[in-house]
Structure formats: structure tokens, C-alpha cells
């Protein structure tokens, strides 16, 4: 394709070119909204049918890690927005710094997620043959808060009294938990790849006040992934916490 500088031949101005690119990204994000929407729909239907199992499943998640990760992700959105601003005002060094900060925070998020997944494996909360909501309270490991564990045992026993099939219904909660957070994490990994590509470009000084469309468009994607987490956090971590 022929282009003059940063302007491709089918566009009249750089502004028109940028508007076209961002509109295209938004159209893609609309499909993403409906894609994640289907999972939220499956979640809503199952939660309303098996509220006890969803409540007890949610209470096994670590709220400190979840809330901490929310802060980390929102912070990464801020640094991403600042990277866009830096490009717009022509501070080339700041673009690199803010992009690297965004990548760093995204990596921290994924690391914490890995720790959380590992915990669920250790506690026999992976849907499948070995799934048992009663396993963890009965098998404490080093570092567990015994008082909290006794409380958890009490809650699990209460839940079993309400819904004797909790080991079946709990698997629905954890299938959705891993499905939704896993899909979200996959988006983060793709986002991290895009950020590495942007960081390379920023080292070459590619992004200027005249041309910064890639930063803007990847920013839109990154903020969208942030929004998905803004909904996932209360829906997965904060069910029935007041009991």
C-alpha cells in the first residue's frame, strides 16, 4: 500500500485515519462485550439457581488478593492513559516509561492470578473428579489461619445442610470462575504482547503528536479488559460476604 509518511493513501488527513482506526477498534470491542456478555449471562442464570453453592464458592476466594489485583489493574489503566497523553504531547521518553509501567502492572496481575489458581488446586476446588468443598477445612496446610478455617468449615457444613448437592453445584461456580477469569487472563496476555510491540516502537521514537494511533488503539483494548475485571471482581469475589 502506498503511503506518505504516516498517512495511508485512502485517507485525506491523519485525523481521519485515526478516527477510522479507533472506530474499528470500538466495533471489535462491541463483539467483545457480547462475547463476555454470554459468560455473564451463564453466570447470572446459574447463580440465581444455585445461590448457596455460589455463595460458599465465592467465600473460598481470597478477597485481599482479589481487591489488590483490582487496584493493580486500575493503576495499569492509569499508566496506559498517561502513555497516550505522553504521545499526544510529544514526550517520547515518557511514552516508553508509562508503557513499561503498564506492562509491569499487567504482569503483577497475572502473577497474583497464578498464585490464586495454585491455591484452588491445593484445596481440591478444580471442577472434576477430586472436587470437594470439604477438603480444605479438613486438611490445613502450613500458613493457614486456623481460626478462619474453622469458620470456613462451619460455613461449608451449613451450606451442605441447605443444599446436599453442593459438591455438584459448587463445580458450576468454579467452572464459571475459571472460565471467566481464564478468558480475562488470556486477554491480558494478548494485551501484554501488544504492549511489548508498542514498547519496541516507542524505543524507536515512532509515536509523536501527529501519529500515535497504535498507542491509542491498544489503550482502548487495555481499558476494555480493565472494565471486564471491574465487573468480574464483585460478581466472583463478593457474593454473600456479610454472612
Amino acid at each position, binding site marked *: 500500500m502506498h503511503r506518505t509518511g504516516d498517512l495511508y493513501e485512502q485517507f485525506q*488527513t*491523519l*485525523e481521519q485515519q*485515526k*478516527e477510522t482506526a*479507533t*472506530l474499528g477498534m*470500538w*466495533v471489535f*470491542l*462491541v463483539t467483545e*462485550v*457480547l462475547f463476555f*456478555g*454470554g459468560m*455473564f*449471562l451463564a453466570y*447470572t*442464570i446459574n447463580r440465581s*439457581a*444455585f445461590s448457596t453453592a455460589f455463595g460458599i464458592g465465592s467465600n473460598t476466594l481470597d478477597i485481599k488478593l482479589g*481487591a489488590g489485583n*483490582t*487496584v493493580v489493574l*486500575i*493503576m495499569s*489503566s*492509569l499508566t496506559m*492513559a*498517561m502513555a497516550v*497523553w505522553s504521545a*499526544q*504531547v510529544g514526550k517520547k521518553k515518557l511514552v516508553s516509561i508509562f508503557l513499561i509501567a503498564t506492562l509491569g502492572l499487567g504482569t503483577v496481575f497475572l502473577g497474583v492470578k497464578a498464585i490464586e489458581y495454585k491455591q484452588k488446586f491445593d484445596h481440591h476446588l478444580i471442577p472434576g*473428579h*477430586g*472436587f*470437594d468443598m470439604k477438603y480444605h477445612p479438613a486438611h490445613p496446610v502450613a500458613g493457614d489461619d486456623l481460626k478462619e478455617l474453622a469458620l470456613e468449615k462451619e460455613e461449608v457444613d451449613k451450606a451442605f445442610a441447605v443444599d*446436599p*448437592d453442593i*459438591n*455438584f*453445584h459448587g*463445580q458450576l461456580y468454579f467452572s464459571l470462575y475459571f472460565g471467566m477469569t481464564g478468558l480475562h487472563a488470556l486477554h491480558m496476555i494478548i494485551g501484554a504482547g501488544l504492549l511489548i510491540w508498542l514498547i519496541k516502537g516507542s524505543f524507536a521514537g515512532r509515536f509523536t*503528536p*501527529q501519529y500515535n494511533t497504535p498507542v*491509542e488503539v491498544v*489503550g*482502548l483494548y487495555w*481499558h*476494555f479488559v*480493565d*472494565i471486564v475485571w*471491574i*465487573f468480574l*471482581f*464483585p*460478581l466472583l469475589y*463478593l457474593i454473600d*460476604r*456479610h454472612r
Partner: protein
Amino acid sequence: MSEHIVSPKIYFAIFAALMIGTTLTVWAAFQNFGPFNIVIALGIATIKATLVVLYFMHARYSPKRTQLVIICSVFWLAIMLALTLSDYDTRSHEMQPGVTRLDLPAPSHFFTA
């Protein structure tokens, strides 16, 4: 170029608002508001998402065409949720009075956990 540049001041203000929203939603989860717990949680999440879309994603300063696309996404999502949920809500009662289909116990051969 007539591009609108959002100042860092606004970005940091939105960030602060998002942090307050996160704190609020965690606090609210530990209070017993009965059926309103979920309403409050989703309300706060929606406000946070709106702030991200309007300012971090520049929707407020975008062309009308882009804004229309954003509104469309919410509209189609609402159709998907509303029609599916109303179907689930009205259909399953036919199966057994007083019991929704999903309340039935899992078949015993399904899992052997």
C-alpha cells in the same frame, strides 16, 4: 488537528474515583442489605465502567459516530440479557410447580465426586 487531549489532572481524578469505588464496593459487600447487595455491587461497577469509557477511553470527546457504536454495544447486550433471562424466568415453572428446572438435583451418575 483538532484532537482533544485529556489532561493528566483528569486521568488522576478518575483514578481516584475508581479507587474510592473499589473501596466502597468491598465495604458494601460486608454489610447486609438483603437483596440490594447485588444491586449496589453492580451499580458501583457500572459507574466505574462508565468513568473508564468516558475518560480513559475518551468516549466523551469522540465523534458522534463512535459514541453511537458504544451505545449500540450496551443496547445489544441488554437485548441478550433481557430476552434470555425472561425466557428462563417464565419457562422453567412449567416443569414442576414451585421448583425451577435448575433446582432439581444433579443426576446421580453425573459426577462421582
